């Protein structure tokens, strides 16, 4: 049975139902192992490492098998290299993804997820704030920028990435799930201790308040949810156990830079996917 992607907007509920129905029929086959083609960028690194560790320690979910396509590999960049056809995806991506698809039942995306950090990890020269939800207070010492304007600006900054994501989706004739990226790390100290590429700027600009960064991350997730709904992709939220009461990343999940999750986070994420696939089959 082949999964046929559909064009046009489908609600997240409908998208989930289609994927569930497909998985239910697939489960009736003899071999119950789901072959997952994972495609991602930096947020996939913790998944790769967690997979290795879990397999070594025989904790990897028995019903899953992962193959990874790391989109940051040099051969895949730039994503649209043809100056005469800016919509043509890099042939190396097309070739490798198509080849892997033949051996896959499901595609899981760990693409993107850091646009919120680019825009708001550090304080802006003109510090700003916005309301994400009705009850959100505004920092009166910061310039207020209307929510939809921040959202549209964030969406603009993701345009090239979403174009690539969309082009990839066009190649894939299998069910697809996008995993939400990890929320921000609340600790200024942790970020200062592991500044990564932001080292020089952290000193001059300072780290933006965690509550502000969380709002940007939520906006980003909102954009992904919308994108997924429009592209027949199921959106899978982060594992609940990885977030604190505020919705920020729990310390157990902090990676060794200001924005990424660690192996523990990767493990929770894999287990979250396995649980989701198993409940989808009910």
């Amino acid at each position: 049975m082949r999964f046929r992607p559909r064009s046009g907007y489908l609600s997240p509920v409908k998208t989930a139902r289609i994927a569930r129905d497909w998985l239910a029929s697939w489960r009736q086959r003899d071999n119950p192992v789901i072959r997952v083609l994972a495609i991602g960028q930096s947020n996939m690194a913790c998944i790769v490492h967690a997979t290795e560790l879990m397999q070594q320690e025989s904790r990897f979910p028995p019903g899953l098998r992962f193959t990874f396509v790391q989109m940051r590999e040099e051969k895949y960049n730039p994503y649209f290299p043809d100056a005469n056809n800016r919509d043509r995806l890099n042939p190396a991506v097309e070739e490798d993804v198509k080849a892997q698809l033949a051996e896959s039942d499901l595609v899981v995306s760990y693409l993107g997820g850091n646009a919120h950090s680019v825009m708001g990890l550090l304080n802006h020269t003109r510090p700003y704030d916005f309301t994400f939800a009705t009850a959100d207070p505004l920092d009166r010492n910061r310039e207020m920028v209307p929510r939809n304007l921040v959202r549209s600006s964030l969406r603009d900054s993701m345009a090239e990435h979403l174009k690539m994501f969309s082009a990839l989706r066009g190649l894939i004739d299998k069910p697809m799930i996008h995993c939400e990226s990890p929320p921000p790390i609340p600790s200024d100290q942790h970020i200062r201790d592991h500044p990564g590429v932001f080292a020089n700027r952290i000193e001059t600009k300072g780290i933006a308040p965690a509550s502000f960064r969380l709002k940007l991350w939520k906006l980003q997730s909102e954009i992904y949810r919308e994108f997924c709904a429009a592209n027949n992709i199921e959106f899978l939220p982060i594992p609940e156990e990885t977030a604190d009461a505020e919705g920020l990343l729990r310390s157990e999940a902090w990676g060794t830079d200001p924005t990424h999750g660690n192996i523990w986070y990767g493990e929770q994420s894999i287990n979250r996917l396995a649980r989701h696939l198993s409940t989808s089959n009910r």
Partner: protein
Amino acid sequence: MAQHPYEDAPAYAFWRRSVADMPLHEVDPVIRAEFAISKTDRVATAGSCFAQNISRYLQQQGFNFYVAEKAHPIVSRQLAHQYNYGTFSARYGNIYTARQLVQLLKRADDEFRPEEDIWETEDGRFIDPFRPQIQPDGFSTRTEYSADRATHLAKVRGLIEQLDVLVFTLGLTECWRSRADGAVFPLCPGVAGGTFDPARHEFINFGVDEIAGDLLESIDWIRKRNTKAKIILTVSPVPLIATAENRHVLVSTAYSKSVLRVAAEMVSTARPAVAYFPSYEIVAGSFNKGRYFANDLRSVTEEGVSHVMRLFLKHYMGATDIASVTIAPGPEHQRVSNTETAEMAALVELNCDEEALDRPTIAQR
């Protein structure tokens, strides 16, 4: 020796010599500027949608179009434009009437707090009644709305204190106001937000004395805070899209434009450093045989706008290198076909929220 007063009159005083016999693009009713504007002078704009053209040309020609309320740097130029940053010097949207201007100034100084100052939509968004289309999708929360309005009014205060020249384009005499406190709305409640209620809202068509009075009050208010401010008044040549008077829209248009023109004359002679610039005459004048209006007989073509702005830049700003403002004459048939697309593109860029009046829901009323 002159036998009568007309014998020594200059050529521009004669219709044949200055209008009928002149090539279209050389008709110049400005004659002289009341004052000069330097490249460094901060020129602010406000008024009806036609005033947006002035902002656009000042920017294009490298003059100091003063924008006090700028979009945050995270916002792209295109997005800022969609959200009406830089359309005028502050994000007040179209100011169609002189009463709207004077009330804006008073609101900026907290001298006037309209009772009806927020509209909530059915889907929980918030609209500013005094700039109902400033935010394409409304404000997300009441908090956001209040914060944005406070920022806006503070920027208006700053603008008034810092500007060197204000170009104000008078657009309409008709408007709707609150019965409670006389607050005037740029658009009738119910058109782009709010709910129209005859018990709370009433129509008013301002007369010449009221408009002149509002303009004088505005100018005096500005000069109290900025003694050096110079003012240029213009009248929008754009006809009314609809009239609330029970009469033909053509008649209402003639009335409104006549009143605005007279009020501008009264005010420009009543105060020093207040000039009248004849953009209305350039666009609506019969010498161009209607050519400066697009097919809807209402929108001003780019050719018409460029004629206005060429003269504005020439007389007030001493611009000599204004080639880009000049439309090169060409064969008639070629001009029409070649400019249409460009004109339409420019026209749709203008944000005339009056257009909302002509939507079917209003026509069905």
